Protein backbone atom coordinates (compact mmCIF):
# COMPACT_ATOMS: atom_id res chain seq x y z
CA UNK A 1 0.00 0.00 0.00
CA UNK A 2 2.79 2.32 0.99
CA UNK A 3 4.63 1.58 -2.23
CA UNK A 4 1.51 2.42 -4.24
CA UNK A 5 1.15 5.69 -2.37
CA UNK A 6 4.75 6.60 -3.12
CA UNK A 7 4.33 5.46 -6.72
CA UNK A 8 1.36 7.79 -7.24
CA UNK A 9 3.48 10.65 -5.98
CA UNK A 10 6.42 9.65 -8.20
CA UNK A 11 4.22 9.41 -11.27
CA UNK A 12 2.88 12.90 -10.60
CA UNK A 13 6.22 14.58 -9.79
CA UNK A 14 8.55 12.46 -11.89
CA UNK A 15 6.49 11.71 -14.97
CA UNK A 16 3.55 14.08 -15.36
CA UNK A 17 5.45 17.20 -14.32
CA UNK A 18 8.30 16.33 -16.68
CA UNK A 19 6.19 15.13 -19.57
CA UNK A 20 8.08 17.42 -21.96
CA UNK A 21 10.75 14.71 -22.21
CA UNK A 22 8.22 12.61 -24.14
CA UNK A 23 8.77 15.01 -27.00
CA UNK A 24 11.91 12.97 -27.70
CA UNK A 25 10.09 9.75 -28.76
CA UNK A 26 7.55 11.92 -30.55
CA UNK A 27 10.17 13.70 -32.66
CA UNK A 28 12.03 10.40 -33.12
CA UNK A 29 8.86 8.77 -34.45
CA UNK A 30 8.16 11.70 -36.74
CA UNK A 31 11.66 11.61 -38.26
CA UNK A 32 11.65 7.84 -38.65
CA UNK A 33 8.16 7.87 -40.18
CA UNK A 34 9.19 10.51 -42.71
CA UNK A 35 12.30 8.49 -43.52
CA UNK A 36 10.27 5.31 -43.91
CA UNK A 37 7.67 7.03 -46.02
CA UNK A 38 10.28 8.31 -48.47
CA UNK A 39 11.89 4.84 -48.59
CA UNK A 40 8.52 3.28 -49.46
CA UNK A 41 7.93 5.83 -52.21
CA UNK A 42 11.34 5.20 -53.76
CA UNK A 43 10.93 1.47 -53.32
CA UNK A 44 7.50 1.42 -54.96
CA UNK A 45 8.71 3.61 -57.82
CA UNK A 46 11.80 1.45 -58.48
CA UNK A 47 10.01 -1.87 -58.25
CA UNK A 48 6.79 -0.73 -59.84
CA UNK A 49 4.96 -2.05 -56.79
CA UNK A 50 2.33 -0.72 -54.43
CA UNK A 51 2.79 -2.02 -50.92
CA UNK A 52 0.02 -1.15 -48.50
CA UNK A 53 1.93 -0.55 -45.28
CA UNK A 54 0.62 -0.85 -41.73
CA UNK A 55 1.37 1.07 -38.56
CA UNK A 56 3.39 -1.92 -37.30
CA UNK A 57 5.65 -1.67 -40.37
CA UNK A 58 6.44 1.89 -39.37
CA UNK A 59 7.16 0.94 -35.77
CA UNK A 60 9.35 -2.02 -36.77
CA UNK A 61 11.32 0.26 -39.11
CA UNK A 62 11.74 2.91 -36.40
CA UNK A 63 13.11 0.36 -33.92
CA UNK A 64 15.45 -1.39 -36.32
CA UNK A 65 18.70 0.31 -35.24
CA UNK A 66 21.66 -0.57 -37.46
CA UNK A 67 22.91 -3.82 -38.97
CA UNK A 68 25.37 -6.13 -37.30
CA UNK A 69 28.78 -4.46 -37.40
CA UNK A 70 32.09 -6.25 -37.74
CA UNK A 71 35.10 -4.24 -36.63
CA UNK A 72 36.93 -2.98 -39.67
CA UNK A 73 39.58 -0.25 -39.38
CA UNK A 74 39.16 0.56 -43.07
CA UNK A 75 35.47 1.19 -42.79
CA UNK A 76 34.42 4.14 -40.63
CA UNK A 77 31.08 3.30 -39.07
CA UNK A 78 29.08 6.31 -37.92
CA UNK A 79 27.24 6.04 -34.64
CA UNK A 80 23.55 5.18 -35.24
CA UNK A 81 22.40 8.52 -33.88
CA UNK A 82 18.64 8.06 -34.19
CA UNK A 83 18.73 4.90 -32.13
CA UNK A 84 21.19 6.48 -29.70
CA UNK A 85 19.13 9.63 -29.16
CA UNK A 86 16.04 7.53 -28.52
CA UNK A 87 17.79 5.46 -25.86
CA UNK A 88 19.52 8.51 -24.41
CA UNK A 89 16.14 10.21 -23.99
CA UNK A 90 14.84 7.65 -21.50
CA UNK A 91 18.19 7.59 -19.67
CA UNK A 92 17.96 11.36 -19.30
CA UNK A 93 14.39 11.03 -18.05
CA UNK A 94 15.30 8.45 -15.42
CA UNK A 95 18.58 9.99 -14.35
CA UNK A 96 17.97 12.63 -11.76
CA UNK A 97 14.41 12.73 -10.41
CA UNK A 98 14.88 9.88 -7.85
CA UNK A 99 18.18 11.28 -6.59
CA UNK A 100 16.72 14.78 -6.43
CA UNK A 101 13.67 13.50 -4.57
CA UNK A 102 15.93 11.66 -2.15
CA UNK A 103 18.19 14.63 -1.48
CA UNK A 104 15.31 17.10 -1.11
CA UNK A 105 12.55 15.08 0.55
CA UNK A 106 14.21 11.76 1.39
CA UNK A 107 14.79 12.47 5.06
CA UNK A 108 11.17 13.40 5.74
CA UNK A 109 9.57 10.72 3.60
CA UNK A 110 11.81 7.86 4.68
CA UNK A 111 11.45 8.73 8.37
CA UNK A 112 7.70 9.26 8.26
CA UNK A 113 7.11 6.30 5.92
CA UNK A 114 9.08 3.91 8.17
CA UNK A 115 9.84 1.62 5.22
CA UNK A 116 12.86 2.31 3.10
CA UNK A 117 12.23 -0.72 0.90
CA UNK A 118 8.78 0.64 -0.05
CA UNK A 119 10.34 3.94 -1.09
CA UNK A 120 12.95 2.19 -3.25
CA UNK A 121 10.38 -0.19 -4.75
CA UNK A 122 8.19 2.76 -5.70
CA UNK A 123 11.18 4.22 -7.58
CA UNK A 124 11.69 0.85 -9.29
CA UNK A 125 8.07 0.67 -10.41
CA UNK A 126 8.19 4.31 -11.45
CA UNK A 127 11.25 3.57 -13.58
CA UNK A 128 9.62 0.55 -15.26
CA UNK A 129 6.36 2.44 -15.85
CA UNK A 130 8.27 5.39 -17.32
CA UNK A 131 10.02 3.11 -19.78
CA UNK A 132 6.68 1.56 -20.77
CA UNK A 133 5.11 4.99 -21.23
CA UNK A 134 8.14 6.14 -23.24
CA UNK A 135 7.85 3.21 -25.65
CA UNK A 136 4.08 3.63 -25.75
CA UNK A 137 4.47 7.27 -26.77
CA UNK A 138 6.90 6.16 -29.49
CA UNK A 139 4.46 3.53 -30.73
CA UNK A 140 1.38 5.76 -30.63
CA UNK A 141 3.14 8.66 -32.35
CA UNK A 142 4.55 6.27 -34.94
CA UNK A 143 1.02 4.97 -35.51
CA UNK A 144 -0.41 8.49 -35.83
CA UNK A 145 2.26 9.59 -38.32
CA UNK A 146 1.81 6.32 -40.22
CA UNK A 147 -1.94 6.85 -40.43
CA UNK A 148 -1.40 10.40 -41.67
CA UNK A 149 0.81 8.98 -44.41
CA UNK A 150 -1.86 6.49 -45.44
CA UNK A 151 -0.83 3.34 -43.59
CA UNK A 152 -3.45 0.79 -42.60
CA UNK A 153 -4.62 0.52 -39.00
CA UNK A 154 -3.29 -2.97 -38.43
CA UNK A 155 -0.78 -4.60 -36.09
CA UNK A 156 0.27 -7.01 -38.80
CA UNK A 157 3.37 -6.53 -40.94
CA UNK A 158 3.71 -6.48 -44.72
CA UNK A 159 5.85 -9.56 -45.11
CA UNK A 160 6.68 -9.04 -48.80
CA UNK A 161 8.02 -5.58 -48.14
CA UNK A 162 9.95 -6.67 -45.04
CA UNK A 163 11.65 -9.43 -47.04
CA UNK A 164 12.35 -7.12 -49.97
CA UNK A 165 13.72 -4.32 -47.78
CA UNK A 166 15.48 -6.07 -44.88
CA UNK A 167 16.60 -9.07 -46.86
CA UNK A 168 15.82 -12.74 -47.27
CA UNK A 169 16.48 -13.45 -43.57
CA UNK A 170 13.10 -11.91 -42.80
CA UNK A 171 11.48 -14.97 -44.35
CA UNK A 172 12.49 -16.95 -41.27
CA UNK A 173 11.24 -14.39 -38.78
CA UNK A 174 7.66 -15.18 -37.84
CA UNK A 175 5.28 -12.49 -36.60
CA UNK A 176 5.53 -13.69 -33.00
CA UNK A 177 9.34 -13.69 -33.25
CA UNK A 178 9.25 -10.17 -34.61
CA UNK A 179 7.11 -9.03 -31.69
CA UNK A 180 9.60 -10.61 -29.30
CA UNK A 181 12.71 -9.06 -30.87
CA UNK A 182 11.25 -5.67 -31.81
CA UNK A 183 8.92 -5.03 -28.86
CA UNK A 184 9.38 -7.27 -25.83
CA UNK A 185 13.17 -7.61 -25.67
CA UNK A 186 13.97 -3.90 -26.29
CA UNK A 187 11.45 -2.76 -23.67
CA UNK A 188 12.73 -5.30 -21.12
CA UNK A 189 16.38 -4.49 -21.73
CA UNK A 190 15.79 -0.73 -21.64
CA UNK A 191 13.89 -1.08 -18.36
CA UNK A 192 16.71 -3.21 -16.91
CA UNK A 193 19.39 -0.75 -18.02
CA UNK A 194 17.37 2.10 -16.52
CA UNK A 195 17.07 0.22 -13.21
CA UNK A 196 20.82 -0.26 -13.07
CA UNK A 197 21.27 3.42 -13.93
CA UNK A 198 18.79 4.31 -11.18
CA UNK A 199 20.87 2.41 -8.64
CA UNK A 200 24.11 3.92 -9.97
CA UNK A 201 22.70 7.43 -9.66
CA UNK A 202 22.55 6.89 -5.88
CA UNK A 203 25.89 5.11 -5.60
CA UNK A 204 27.86 7.42 -7.93
CA UNK A 205 25.95 10.50 -9.06
CA UNK A 206 23.19 11.15 -11.63
CA UNK A 207 25.64 12.72 -14.10
CA UNK A 208 28.17 9.91 -13.82
CA UNK A 209 25.53 7.20 -14.10
CA UNK A 210 24.09 8.94 -17.16
CA UNK A 211 27.57 9.16 -18.70
CA UNK A 212 28.23 5.47 -18.00
CA UNK A 213 24.91 4.49 -19.56
CA UNK A 214 25.56 6.61 -22.66
CA UNK A 215 29.05 5.12 -22.95
CA UNK A 216 27.58 1.63 -22.75
CA UNK A 217 25.07 2.45 -25.51
CA UNK A 218 27.84 3.81 -27.76
CA UNK A 219 29.89 0.64 -27.25
CA UNK A 220 26.76 -1.46 -27.88
CA UNK A 221 26.52 0.12 -31.32
CA UNK A 222 29.99 -1.21 -32.21
CA UNK A 223 30.22 -4.44 -30.23
CA UNK A 224 27.36 -6.87 -30.46
CA UNK A 225 27.90 -8.73 -27.22
CA UNK A 226 25.78 -9.73 -24.24
CA UNK A 227 27.92 -7.64 -21.87
CA UNK A 228 26.88 -4.52 -23.79
CA UNK A 229 23.13 -5.08 -23.35
CA UNK A 230 22.22 -2.07 -25.50
CA UNK A 231 22.73 -4.39 -28.49
CA UNK A 232 19.55 -6.25 -27.52
CA UNK A 233 17.50 -3.13 -28.26
CA UNK A 234 18.49 -3.39 -31.94
CA UNK A 235 16.34 -6.09 -33.46
CA UNK A 236 18.46 -6.33 -36.62
CA UNK A 237 21.16 -7.80 -34.37
CA UNK A 238 18.92 -10.54 -33.04
CA UNK A 239 19.92 -14.12 -33.79
CA UNK A 240 16.41 -14.65 -35.19
CA UNK A 241 17.35 -12.28 -37.98
CA UNK A 242 21.14 -12.53 -38.22
CA UNK A 243 22.90 -15.72 -37.19
CA UNK A 244 25.83 -13.70 -35.79
CA UNK A 245 23.44 -11.78 -33.56
CA UNK A 246 22.32 -12.17 -29.96
CA UNK A 247 19.77 -14.66 -28.72
CA UNK A 248 16.66 -12.73 -27.61
CA UNK A 249 15.92 -15.29 -24.89
CA UNK A 250 19.33 -14.60 -23.36
CA UNK A 251 18.39 -10.92 -23.59
CA UNK A 252 15.31 -11.55 -21.48
CA UNK A 253 17.37 -13.55 -18.97
CA UNK A 254 19.98 -10.78 -18.77
CA UNK A 255 17.24 -8.17 -18.33
CA UNK A 256 15.69 -10.20 -15.49
CA UNK A 257 19.11 -10.66 -13.86
CA UNK A 258 19.93 -6.96 -14.11
CA UNK A 259 16.55 -5.97 -12.73
CA UNK A 260 16.68 -8.39 -9.79
CA UNK A 261 20.27 -7.37 -8.98
CA UNK A 262 19.44 -3.67 -9.14
CA UNK A 263 16.37 -4.09 -6.92
CA UNK A 264 18.28 -6.26 -4.42
CA UNK A 265 21.31 -3.99 -4.20
CA UNK A 266 19.00 -0.98 -4.01
CA UNK A 267 17.17 -2.39 -0.99
CA UNK A 268 20.47 -3.27 0.69
CA UNK A 269 21.86 0.17 -0.09
CA UNK A 270 18.87 1.99 1.37
CA UNK A 271 18.59 -0.21 4.44
CA UNK A 272 22.18 0.72 5.33
CA UNK A 273 22.04 4.36 4.28
CA UNK A 274 22.48 7.01 6.92
CA UNK A 275 19.68 9.39 6.06
CA UNK A 276 19.79 11.87 8.88
Amino acid sequence: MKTLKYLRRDMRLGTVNRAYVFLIPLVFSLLMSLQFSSIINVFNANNNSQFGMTIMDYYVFAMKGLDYYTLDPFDLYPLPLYWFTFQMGISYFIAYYPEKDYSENGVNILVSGKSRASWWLSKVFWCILSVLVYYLVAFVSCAVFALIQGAGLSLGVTKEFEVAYFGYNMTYVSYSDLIVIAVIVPVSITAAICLVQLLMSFVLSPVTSFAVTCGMYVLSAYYTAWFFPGSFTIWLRSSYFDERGLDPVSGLVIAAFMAVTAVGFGIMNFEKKDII
Partner: protein
Amino acid sequence: MRLIRFEIYRAFHSRTFLAGLLIGCVICAADLIIFCIQVENAYLHRAWIGTDQVLNINHVFYVLLPIIGSLPFGGSLYTDIKTGYDKNICVKASRINYASAKGIAVFLSAFVSVALPLGLNLFIAAGIYPNYIPDFFVTMSGTTLPNRMLFSEICNYHPSIYSLIFICVDGFFAGAIALTSLSLSGAVNSHFTAVVTPMLLYIYSSTLLFPNDDNYVKGNWSILDMLNPSPIVTTRWEQMLTVFLAVFVFNFMFIWLFSRKRDVL
Protein backbone atom coordinates in the same frame (compact mmCIF):
# COMPACT_ATOMS: atom_id res chain seq x y z
CA MET B 1 41.66 39.70 -11.38
CA ARG B 2 41.47 38.30 -7.86
CA LEU B 3 37.98 37.04 -8.57
CA ILE B 4 39.18 35.26 -11.70
CA ARG B 5 42.03 33.64 -9.77
CA PHE B 6 39.60 32.64 -7.03
CA GLU B 7 37.14 31.02 -9.45
CA ILE B 8 39.93 29.23 -11.32
CA TYR B 9 41.23 27.93 -7.99
CA ARG B 10 37.75 26.69 -7.11
CA ALA B 11 37.34 25.06 -10.53
CA PHE B 12 40.63 23.17 -10.43
CA HIS B 13 40.27 22.09 -6.81
CA SER B 14 36.75 20.74 -7.05
CA ARG B 15 35.80 17.07 -6.85
CA THR B 16 33.74 17.44 -10.01
CA PHE B 17 36.88 18.49 -11.89
CA LEU B 18 38.54 15.27 -10.79
CA ALA B 19 35.42 13.32 -11.77
CA GLY B 20 35.41 14.85 -15.28
CA LEU B 21 39.11 14.25 -15.66
CA LEU B 22 38.71 10.69 -14.39
CA ILE B 23 35.98 9.88 -16.93
CA GLY B 24 38.18 11.17 -19.76
CA CYS B 25 41.28 9.38 -18.48
CA VAL B 26 39.45 6.07 -17.97
CA ILE B 27 38.15 6.13 -21.57
CA CYS B 28 41.60 7.04 -22.96
CA ALA B 29 43.38 4.45 -20.81
CA ALA B 30 40.88 1.73 -21.77
CA ASP B 31 41.39 2.53 -25.45
CA LEU B 32 45.18 2.39 -25.24
CA ILE B 33 45.29 -0.77 -23.10
CA ILE B 34 42.89 -2.69 -25.35
CA PHE B 35 44.71 -1.40 -28.42
CA CYS B 36 48.07 -2.62 -27.04
CA ILE B 37 46.61 -6.05 -26.32
CA GLN B 38 44.74 -6.50 -29.58
CA VAL B 39 46.75 -4.76 -32.28
CA GLU B 40 50.22 -5.66 -33.47
CA ASN B 41 52.57 -3.69 -35.73
CA ALA B 42 50.72 -0.42 -35.18
CA TYR B 43 52.09 3.10 -35.24
CA LEU B 44 51.36 6.26 -33.25
CA HIS B 45 48.72 7.71 -35.53
CA ARG B 46 46.63 4.58 -35.29
CA ALA B 47 47.15 4.11 -31.58
CA TRP B 48 46.09 7.60 -30.44
CA ILE B 49 42.45 7.54 -29.30
CA GLY B 50 41.42 10.31 -31.69
CA THR B 51 42.52 8.49 -34.81
CA ASP B 52 42.11 4.93 -33.53
CA GLN B 53 39.69 3.44 -36.02
CA VAL B 54 40.24 -0.11 -34.82
CA LEU B 55 38.39 -0.14 -31.51
CA ASN B 56 35.83 2.66 -31.92
CA ILE B 57 36.23 3.61 -28.26
CA ASN B 58 36.98 7.13 -29.43
CA HIS B 59 33.26 7.50 -30.19
CA VAL B 60 32.58 7.13 -26.46
CA PHE B 61 34.97 9.99 -25.75
CA TYR B 62 33.52 12.25 -28.43
CA VAL B 63 29.91 11.52 -27.46
CA LEU B 64 30.67 12.26 -23.80
CA LEU B 65 32.89 15.27 -24.57
CA PRO B 66 30.28 17.86 -23.42
CA ILE B 67 29.82 16.03 -20.11
CA ILE B 68 33.58 15.70 -19.58
CA GLY B 69 33.83 19.44 -20.24
CA SER B 70 30.77 20.62 -18.31
CA LEU B 71 31.05 18.36 -15.28
CA PRO B 72 34.10 20.07 -13.69
CA PHE B 73 32.62 23.54 -13.17
CA GLY B 74 29.70 23.98 -15.59
CA GLY B 75 27.06 23.51 -12.90
CA SER B 76 28.81 25.74 -10.37
CA LEU B 77 26.77 28.86 -11.09
CA TYR B 78 23.57 26.89 -10.53
CA THR B 79 24.96 25.52 -7.25
CA ASP B 80 26.15 28.98 -6.17
CA ILE B 81 22.72 30.49 -6.88
CA LYS B 82 20.92 27.66 -5.12
CA THR B 83 23.08 27.76 -2.00
CA GLY B 84 23.20 31.55 -1.93
CA TYR B 85 26.98 31.56 -2.25
CA ASP B 86 26.82 34.02 -5.13
CA LYS B 87 25.32 36.66 -2.81
CA ASN B 88 28.47 36.72 -0.71
CA ILE B 89 30.58 37.30 -3.79
CA CYS B 90 28.26 39.79 -5.50
CA VAL B 91 28.30 42.02 -2.41
CA LYS B 92 31.95 42.79 -3.13
CA ALA B 93 32.09 42.37 -6.92
CA SER B 94 29.81 43.28 -9.77
CA ARG B 95 27.58 40.61 -11.28
CA ILE B 96 29.22 41.00 -14.67
CA ASN B 97 32.69 40.51 -13.17
CA TYR B 98 31.46 37.49 -11.29
CA ALA B 99 29.94 36.01 -14.46
CA SER B 100 33.12 36.76 -16.44
CA ALA B 101 35.29 35.06 -13.82
CA LYS B 102 32.93 32.09 -13.83
CA GLY B 103 33.03 31.94 -17.64
CA ILE B 104 36.83 31.95 -17.73
CA ALA B 105 37.05 29.28 -15.03
CA VAL B 106 34.44 27.09 -16.75
CA PHE B 107 36.17 27.46 -20.12
CA LEU B 108 39.62 26.62 -18.72
CA SER B 109 38.45 23.67 -16.64
CA ALA B 110 36.59 22.22 -19.64
CA PHE B 111 39.60 22.75 -21.87
CA VAL B 112 41.92 20.97 -19.44
CA SER B 113 39.56 18.10 -18.63
CA VAL B 114 39.19 17.30 -22.34
CA ALA B 115 42.67 18.13 -23.63
CA LEU B 116 44.60 16.50 -20.79
CA PRO B 117 43.31 12.91 -21.27
CA LEU B 118 43.74 13.23 -25.05
CA GLY B 119 47.25 14.65 -24.59
CA LEU B 120 48.22 11.99 -22.04
CA ASN B 121 46.95 9.29 -24.37
CA LEU B 122 49.07 10.70 -27.19
CA PHE B 123 52.08 11.07 -24.91
CA ILE B 124 51.91 7.49 -23.62
CA ALA B 125 51.15 6.08 -27.09
CA ALA B 126 54.18 7.98 -28.40
CA GLY B 127 56.29 6.15 -25.85
CA ILE B 128 55.06 2.80 -27.10
CA TYR B 129 54.61 3.18 -30.86
CA PRO B 130 56.80 4.72 -33.57
CA ASN B 131 55.65 7.90 -35.27
CA TYR B 132 55.38 6.62 -38.85
CA ILE B 133 53.71 8.61 -41.61
CA PRO B 134 50.23 7.14 -41.97
CA ASP B 135 48.99 5.57 -45.15
CA PHE B 136 47.06 8.29 -46.98
CA PHE B 137 44.00 6.24 -47.91
CA VAL B 138 43.96 4.08 -44.81
CA THR B 139 43.76 6.94 -42.35
CA MET B 140 41.24 8.90 -44.33
CA SER B 141 38.93 6.10 -45.32
CA GLY B 142 35.84 7.87 -44.10
CA THR B 143 35.30 9.74 -47.29
CA THR B 144 35.78 9.22 -50.98
CA LEU B 145 37.75 12.47 -51.19
CA PRO B 146 40.54 12.17 -48.61
CA ASN B 147 42.26 15.38 -49.66
CA ARG B 148 39.08 17.31 -48.80
CA MET B 149 39.41 16.42 -45.12
CA LEU B 150 40.32 19.14 -42.67
CA PHE B 151 44.10 19.40 -42.14
CA SER B 152 44.62 16.40 -44.43
CA GLU B 153 48.06 17.57 -45.57
CA ILE B 154 49.27 17.98 -42.00
CA CYS B 155 47.86 14.55 -41.19
CA ASN B 156 49.73 12.96 -44.04
CA TYR B 157 53.10 14.54 -43.36
CA HIS B 158 53.07 15.41 -39.64
CA PRO B 159 50.53 13.12 -37.94
CA SER B 160 51.53 14.06 -34.41
CA ILE B 161 51.02 17.77 -35.20
CA TYR B 162 47.61 16.82 -36.58
CA SER B 163 46.83 15.12 -33.25
CA LEU B 164 47.99 18.17 -31.28
CA ILE B 165 45.86 20.49 -33.43
CA PHE B 166 42.80 18.37 -32.78
CA ILE B 167 43.54 18.19 -29.05
CA CYS B 168 43.48 22.01 -29.00
CA VAL B 169 40.37 22.20 -31.20
CA ASP B 170 38.53 19.70 -28.99
CA GLY B 171 39.59 21.59 -25.89
CA PHE B 172 38.36 24.91 -27.26
CA PHE B 173 35.05 23.42 -28.30
CA ALA B 174 34.68 21.72 -24.91
CA GLY B 175 35.17 25.14 -23.32
CA ALA B 176 32.58 26.78 -25.55
CA ILE B 177 30.10 23.95 -25.00
CA ALA B 178 30.67 24.04 -21.22
CA LEU B 179 29.66 27.71 -21.28
CA THR B 180 26.19 26.46 -22.28
CA SER B 181 25.89 24.98 -18.79
CA LEU B 182 26.62 28.40 -17.39
CA SER B 183 24.15 30.19 -19.64
CA LEU B 184 21.44 27.67 -18.73
CA SER B 185 22.01 27.98 -14.99
CA GLY B 186 19.20 30.47 -14.51
CA ALA B 187 16.67 28.48 -16.49
CA VAL B 188 17.13 24.94 -15.18
CA ASN B 189 16.04 23.37 -11.92
CA SER B 190 18.86 20.97 -11.16
CA HIS B 191 22.62 20.64 -11.33
CA PHE B 192 22.14 17.54 -13.48
CA THR B 193 20.12 19.43 -16.10
CA ALA B 194 22.69 22.24 -16.21
CA VAL B 195 25.53 19.78 -16.82
CA VAL B 196 23.79 17.34 -19.16
CA THR B 197 21.71 19.66 -21.36
CA PRO B 198 24.74 20.78 -23.44
CA MET B 199 25.31 17.14 -24.33
CA LEU B 200 21.67 16.71 -25.33
CA LEU B 201 21.90 19.78 -27.59
CA TYR B 202 25.18 18.50 -29.01
CA ILE B 203 23.82 15.04 -29.79
CA TYR B 204 20.40 16.16 -31.03
CA SER B 205 21.88 18.83 -33.31
CA SER B 206 24.26 16.22 -34.69
CA THR B 207 21.36 13.83 -35.24
CA LEU B 208 19.47 16.44 -37.24
CA LEU B 209 22.63 17.28 -39.19
CA PHE B 210 23.57 13.65 -39.73
CA PRO B 211 24.88 13.31 -43.30
CA ASN B 212 22.61 11.16 -45.45
CA ASP B 213 22.36 10.28 -49.12
CA ASP B 214 20.01 13.21 -49.83
CA ASN B 215 22.19 15.81 -48.20
CA TYR B 216 25.74 14.85 -47.31
CA VAL B 217 26.97 18.43 -47.00
CA LYS B 218 24.83 19.27 -43.94
CA GLY B 219 26.95 16.82 -41.93
CA ASN B 220 29.85 19.25 -42.23
CA TRP B 221 28.09 21.46 -39.66
CA SER B 222 27.68 18.72 -37.09
CA ILE B 223 29.84 19.45 -34.03
CA LEU B 224 30.05 15.78 -33.05
CA ASP B 225 31.47 14.86 -36.43
CA MET B 226 33.77 17.86 -36.90
CA LEU B 227 35.49 17.35 -33.53
CA ASN B 228 36.41 13.76 -34.24
CA PRO B 229 39.90 13.50 -35.77
CA SER B 230 38.63 10.45 -37.69
CA PRO B 231 35.73 12.30 -39.28
CA ILE B 232 33.15 10.98 -41.69
CA VAL B 233 32.52 14.52 -42.93
CA THR B 234 34.59 17.07 -44.82
CA THR B 235 34.25 20.12 -42.61
CA ARG B 236 36.26 23.17 -43.68
CA TRP B 237 38.10 25.31 -41.16
CA GLU B 238 35.78 28.27 -41.90
CA GLN B 239 32.79 26.13 -40.96
CA MET B 240 34.51 24.98 -37.78
CA LEU B 241 35.36 28.56 -36.83
CA THR B 242 31.80 29.71 -37.60
CA VAL B 243 30.29 27.02 -35.39
CA PHE B 244 32.75 27.75 -32.58
CA LEU B 245 32.03 31.48 -32.71
CA ALA B 246 28.30 30.85 -32.89
CA VAL B 247 28.34 28.65 -29.78
CA PHE B 248 30.71 30.98 -27.95
CA VAL B 249 28.95 34.23 -28.79
CA PHE B 250 25.49 32.81 -28.13
CA ASN B 251 26.55 31.61 -24.69
CA PHE B 252 28.43 34.82 -23.97
CA MET B 253 25.35 36.91 -24.83
CA PHE B 254 23.10 34.70 -22.80
CA ILE B 255 25.37 34.82 -19.73
CA TRP B 256 25.73 38.57 -20.06
CA LEU B 257 21.98 39.17 -20.35
CA PHE B 258 21.24 36.80 -17.48
CA SER B 259 23.88 38.35 -15.22
CA ARG B 260 22.88 41.91 -16.03
CA LYS B 261 19.24 41.41 -15.07
CA ARG B 262 19.67 38.95 -12.24
CA ASP B 263 18.45 40.03 -8.84
CA VAL B 264 21.12 38.67 -6.53
CA LEU B 265 20.11 39.98 -3.12
